């Protein structure tokens, strides 16, 4: 096929100069269509064969259930499904029951919850900034939330988990306002520059966190572990502390689905459709802060989940937020759970921090997006 095609091209190329106008149009069209398919991360595909969005959500939910089950069974020791069933519903004092219910269950819940929160936050942020490489990490929100948690626990002696979650949400909110404020005050920075500003903020908060950690050795161990971004050894209470924040954020996000659709184009279009811009933006920032804050307080900064997941969701269900947001939540949940399972095996028998796994995948995706000039 390829050889024939190239031969044909060779045969026709000398005539290309003298071709008629319709022929040039044809080549231009072909070229145009190629670029469109190249950037299909942005454009929804409309195939006859594709599943409808509800069906896709159903499939994603099924995949999520399977991967959560896998997260319960796979690890340093591999348990059978029957052992998992026994541990969860007929608990005894056996070793397998203790490990499954006490160690595996919290992380099997915390991983999808964190992933869903970051996926939702990433989707909203990418729409708000009209920037396909925006995410809670690249805009510095993760870093701000982490800094707020460290500040709250060291300087203000906040101990309760929900207090720390609230601090993380506040940190993310402040950082998002600062980054977007800086971008707006500079008279509309390019999407790339906004990301550079965000990354710089992230490295700044990272450095400050490091100063706090090294100067408070008592809390260093505990906080350093949390800061690496991992789902290991989290108590069940942490899941329960984060859950209301994620739920509230998700409800706010889904409520904004229609205005976000309008906001996707540009401000004047959204306004002419009757969308109250500043109100929608305010609520959206709040939702992003709640979701990012909950994710960071549960698992620490898990890198680049919010960057990768929205692209997958858009690819699957298209641009309508009513479908895109639930798809992003499910994709994020599946992604984080699978990354958590992978983290147990990449350097077996030692466990890698899940944040490192997602960072490698995320950096690869970022390179891909940059090469395709998606932003």
């Amino acid at each position, binding site marked *: 096929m390829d050889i024939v095609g190239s031969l044909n091209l060779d045969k026709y190329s000398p005539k290309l100069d003298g071709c008629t106008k319709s022929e040039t149009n044809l080549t231009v069209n072909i070229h145009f269509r190629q670029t469109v398919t190249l950037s299909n991360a942005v454009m929804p595909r409309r195939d006859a064969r594709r599943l409808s969005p509800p069906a896709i959500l159903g499939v994603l939910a099924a995949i999520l259930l399977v991967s959560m089950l896998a997260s319960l069974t796979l690890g340093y020791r591999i348990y059978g499904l029957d052992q998992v069933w026994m541990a969860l519903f007929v608990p005894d004092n056996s070793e397998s029951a203790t490990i499954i219910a006490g160690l595996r269950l919290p992380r099997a819940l915390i991983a999808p919850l964190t992933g869903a929160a970051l996926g939702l936050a990433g989707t909203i942020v990418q729409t708000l900034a009209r920037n396909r490489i925006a995410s809670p990490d690249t805009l510095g929100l993760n870093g701000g939330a982490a800094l707020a948690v460290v500040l709250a626990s060291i300087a203000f002696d906040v101990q309760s988990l929900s207090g720390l979650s609230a601090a993380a949400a506040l940190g993310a909110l402040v950082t998002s306002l600062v980054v977007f404020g800086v971008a707006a005050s500079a008279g509309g920075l390019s999407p790339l520059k906004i990301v550079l*500003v965000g990354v710089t*903020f992230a490295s700044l908060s990272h*450095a400050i966190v490091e*100063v706090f950690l090294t100067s408070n050795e008592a809390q260093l161990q505990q906080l350093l572990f949390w800061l690496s971004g991992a789902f290991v050894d989290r108590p069940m209470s942490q899941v329960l502390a984060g859950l209301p924040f994620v739920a509230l954020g998700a409800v706010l996000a889904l409520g904004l689905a229609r205005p976000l659709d309008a906001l996707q184009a540009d401000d004047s279009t959204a306004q002419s459709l009757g969308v109250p811009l500043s109100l929608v933006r305010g609520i959206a920032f709040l939702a992003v802060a709640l979701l990012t804050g909950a994710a960071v307080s549960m698992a620490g900064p898990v890198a680049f989940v919010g960057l990768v997941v929205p692209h997958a969701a858009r690819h699957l269900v298209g641009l309508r937020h009513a479908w895109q947001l639930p798809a992003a939540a499910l994709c994020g949940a599946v992604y984080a759970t699978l990354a958590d399972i992978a983290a147990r095996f990449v350097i077996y028998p030692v466990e890698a921090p899940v*944040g*490192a796994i997602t960072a490698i995948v995320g950096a690869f995706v970022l*390179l891909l997006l*940059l090469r395709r*000039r998606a932003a």
Partner: protein
Amino acid sequence: MTMPTLALAPRRMPGRWTILAIVAALFVLLGLAGIGFGSTWIPLDRVATILLGGGERTDRLIVLSLRLPRVAAAMLAGGAIALAGYQLQRITRNELASPGVLGVVDGAALGVVLFMAIFSDESNALVVPVAWQPLAAALGALGAIALVFILSGRQASSAIRLLLFGIAIAAAAKALTTIFMLVGPIYQASQAARWLAGAVNEVNWGEIQIMAICLVPALLLAALLARHLPPADLDDVSAQGIGLNVPVYRILVFANAALLTAIAVSFVGGVGFIGLIAPHLARLLVGRARLAGMLVTALVGAMMLMGADLLIRVAFSPIEVPAGTLTAILGAPYFLFLLMRKDKANG
């Protein structure tokens, strides 16, 4: 350009060398102060006698085995990374470029951590001489910068895009570093601060010797290549037209910058933002002259890291905060300032 007057001023040769002399004098003073300050204050005249071979025994012990090593390490590493930043900014004609943001620092750190993980036995001792460590760092640094430029391709001409490619490579290298720190022996993780932030407090004389020996060829190469660095305001085509910016020299300059970064990172770790700021300060001080610019850049870089280390010893004593965190905290706002300036329309 913030200082068009300086940059455009004709024939300022004498002024330039006077400034260089002043910077050098400040550098010596800061070095002596860096040795003098600490848990006990040793007056500068006593520091000078000790360095010249005299002095009391306790003083000699404190100075020669505790304070001088970290001052010397800060000096060498700061100077090397600043010079690398100078070369990168000139060759890419991008004032936002630096070894940190182009992924070179994290690539070098990954090289070191890999080296330690591969060449250690069960008792956590290296099975090959530690002198090979800079080579591992250099390979990592070269790999990172090559990846950044291969992947960015023609997009490298946009300052901002090039930086984003660098940031992506840096993120991947950092994640791999975290993983390999866990694979390697435990004692490396206790040194994690070095690889995460950059610290000069645990460097010993043997390591400083290796750094100094490796620096000699790197500096010679830098001096030889100085003539081939294009002026910042020349575009690619004109630079090639007058015989500058030939691909071979470009590659050599990149390799040289990677080597300098690797020497700094291999024993001190990633000292953020010095490679960005020092060349800017040097340009403010001496304009665009090459030789004076390079010398002042190296001196300013060395002073920045020595100063950061000194400040940390005074402010946080007895806790050892990594010096790299301080340079990052000071450097990040400056980077933001550079980004926000409106006259630079690099989108």
